[in-house]
């Protein structure tokens, strides 16, 4: 296969990954690494590098819209970035000395976990009035627009949320993905902030988190321009379009299909790793 054909195929694959990633809310990064490795036979290190830069691009594009609409909590995002950037550097440094086999297995676990998370029902959390003193100190309690008007919310358990965000940062640095699933877990389940705020704030932090590991990856030669170009230029318009398409009830079916695809890719990665080849 020559470079032109390869680039076109990778572009189409990335466009689809970005589109479905945005529709289902799982993000394109978690799909692009297994797509490049299992279908295109790309070495996982090049795949991680290409995925990472694409994740920065989609995060920036989406965050711009979310901030304007008033969903993302910019202060909370900036505070949590302390945890995610430090985690991302740790993850990127670990990635440069663990084996490709270990990376594949960690990725498979993250894929299975993401598939599981995407199936969980999304509930807006009932607001309790107890307030976290740290959250008040950092002025994190804010409000966001809803169809009924502006709604207030409070941030809980900041230290635990901070810890989970650090782990999300490590995974992001290790695998070159946004690890939005883990970030939403930290904000949704631990800090108990509204779903709309947690997903958008998570997106806001992904750009900086990925930039933190990008420096390490660039220096180690993981970011290849010839591969990253079609991946980035594919995921970005795909995600842009995916965010604007209304699917309504069909989203649920799509989520299930997407989870099955993730599971199959995870199983294939485990199989190839255990079978010795890659």
């Amino acid at each position: 296969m020559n470079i032109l054909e390869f680039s076109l195929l990778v572009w189409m694959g990335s466009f689809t990954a970005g589109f479905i990633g945005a529709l289902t809310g799982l993000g394109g990064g978690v799909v692009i690494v297994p797509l490049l490795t299992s279908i295109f036979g790309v070495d996982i290190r090049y795949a991680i590098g290409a995925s990472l830069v694409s994740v920065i691009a989609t995060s920036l594009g989406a965050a711009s819209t979310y901030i304007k609409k008033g969903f993302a909590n910019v202060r909370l995002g900036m505070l949590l970035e302390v945890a995610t950037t430090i985690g991302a550097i740790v993850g990127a440094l670990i990635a440069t000395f663990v084996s490709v086999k270990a990376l594949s297995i960690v990725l498979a676990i993250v894929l299975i976990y993401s598939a599981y998370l995407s199936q969980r029902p999304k509930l807006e959390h009932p607001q309790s009035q107890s307030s976290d003193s740290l959250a008040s100190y950092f002025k994190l309690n804010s409000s966001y627009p809803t169809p009924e008007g502006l709604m207030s919310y409070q941030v809980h358990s900041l230290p635990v949320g901070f810890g989970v965000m650090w782990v999300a940062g490590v995974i992001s640095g290790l695998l070159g993905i946004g690890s939005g699933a883990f970030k939403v877990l930290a904000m949704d389940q631990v800090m108990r902030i509204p779903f709309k705020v947690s997903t958008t704030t998570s997106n806001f932090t992904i750009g900086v988190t990925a930039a933190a590991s990008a420096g390490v990856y660039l220096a180690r030669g993981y970011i290849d321009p010839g591969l990253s170009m079609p991946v980035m230029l594919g995921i970005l318009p795909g995600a842009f379009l995916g965010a604007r398409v209304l699917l309504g009830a069909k989203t649920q079916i799509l989520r299930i299909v997407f989870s099955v695809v993730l599971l199959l890719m995870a199983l294939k990665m485990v199989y190839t790793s255990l079978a010795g080849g890659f």
Partner: protein
Amino acid sequence: MDKFDSSVRRGLPKAYEVAPNSNINIKTTSDLQLEHLLSNLLKYGVIMASAVVLFGGILYLIRHGGEPANYHVFQGTPLEFCSPISVLKAALSGSSRGIIQLGLILLTAVPILRVVISLLAFLVLQNFSYVMVTSLVLVALMYSLVGGH
């Protein structure tokens, strides 16, 4: 990219109506100004970086499109594309891969610039706990770019 639900897609009114809820946390004008600035920075940053990558990409496909693709074996990207300064040199000398890589570095610079602008804004607002927070993030980012080598 994360979840977009139907209300996000439908678009909300520009001026937020305040719900009949007395105890509400309303964003201050300076918060809103900073948000507006950051939102535009992210939008134009990503458009500019993508344009550079696209330009380099077209050149790359014209010049090297017929060569065989080989990403099966990891050799590491050539050293000239592994540090911001050498990438700039390669791009200025007309290398198509150098131009793509320059676009990718510009892209990485956008979130870093976002942190720098936030830091300056918090300094002006004399919000010192957030000056600390953004400084810590900036130190981590600088370590990654400089110490990663």
